[in-house]
């Protein structure tokens, strides 16, 4: 039987090289605008489908929130 190993995520968090950090943070730079655009696009599509005009605004805010949540999650994970 193989010896028990510590959870892999913990290992990954402990020793991350700077390039991995660069990858993570470069993702964040685009995550906020991308989340906003995707939220707005999804809302606009729903607006067009349901003949309404408010879902795109909700989608926009959801997109901004999603981007912010992703940002906070990454920062919290890396500052643990």
């Amino acid at each position: 039987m193989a010896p028990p190993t510590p959870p892999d995520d913990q290992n990954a968090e402990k020793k991350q090289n700077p390039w991995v950090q660069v990858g993570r943070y470069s993702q964040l730079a685009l995550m906020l605008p991308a989340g906003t655009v995707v939220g707005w696009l999804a809302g606009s599509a729903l607006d067009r489908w349901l003949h309404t005009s408010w879902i795109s605004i909700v989608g926009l805010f959801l997109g901004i929130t999603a981007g912010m949540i992703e940002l906070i999650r990454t920062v919290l994970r890396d500052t643990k």
Partner: protein
Amino acid sequence: MPEQLWFTEILNHLFAGPVTAFLHVLRITPKHPEAPIPNSFAMELLVFGFLLTLFLLLRSRLSVESPGGLQHSFEAVEGFVVGQSREIIGHHSEPYTPFFTIVFIFILVCNLIGLIPGFESPTGVPVVPLGCAICAFLYYHTQGFKHAGPKYLLHFFGPPMEGMSIWARIPLAILMLPIELVSHFARLLSLTVRLWANIFAGDLITLVFFSMIPIAIPIIFMGLHIVVAILQAYVFMLLSIIYVSGAVAEEH
């Protein structure tokens, strides 16, 4: 008639009829029925053919006793990707490394092919990075499902809240569902835009400086383009690894 590279011209000359007929079956009307294959698709096919030939050649010459230069190079690339994925995903990363390796090599060759006169980078056209991003997107969700089964869907309801009552969890999960969905689709967009914008801008800068000062100066920008090409292929691969590690993490 669109502006075509020599390779696209050959493909359109040979396959324009069948491709247009196939597109009609799919109810797509090509803008130019006499040249339905765009440069980006032709270049992708060329890269695919080149890599396939290279790998077949490599396969036929594999040797443990006296590995050649090509084998050494690919072993180095493979070792690098294995190291990166092990660092991020952990010790169970081996099944995923072939995907990451091929994503890295394919995008790298696509980025670099534009430096050869008579060719252009397919990744400088948004549909190609989008295709690569869709592959990565489908791959990490498939691996998530394979790893956790239907429990993987819990990823879309936000992080697990230890000690919170079920009545508080349900409204929070309903609120988190659209946010998580947007967040996942935003990854698709961010992967696409990053790769496309960098390669498009690199090509454009080289072209602009080449048209202004055709001697020496463009070489500097071509060098910069090589660095950007390698870096962007690496970042795309790295983000794919990060997304897979999130999908196969034991959170729930």
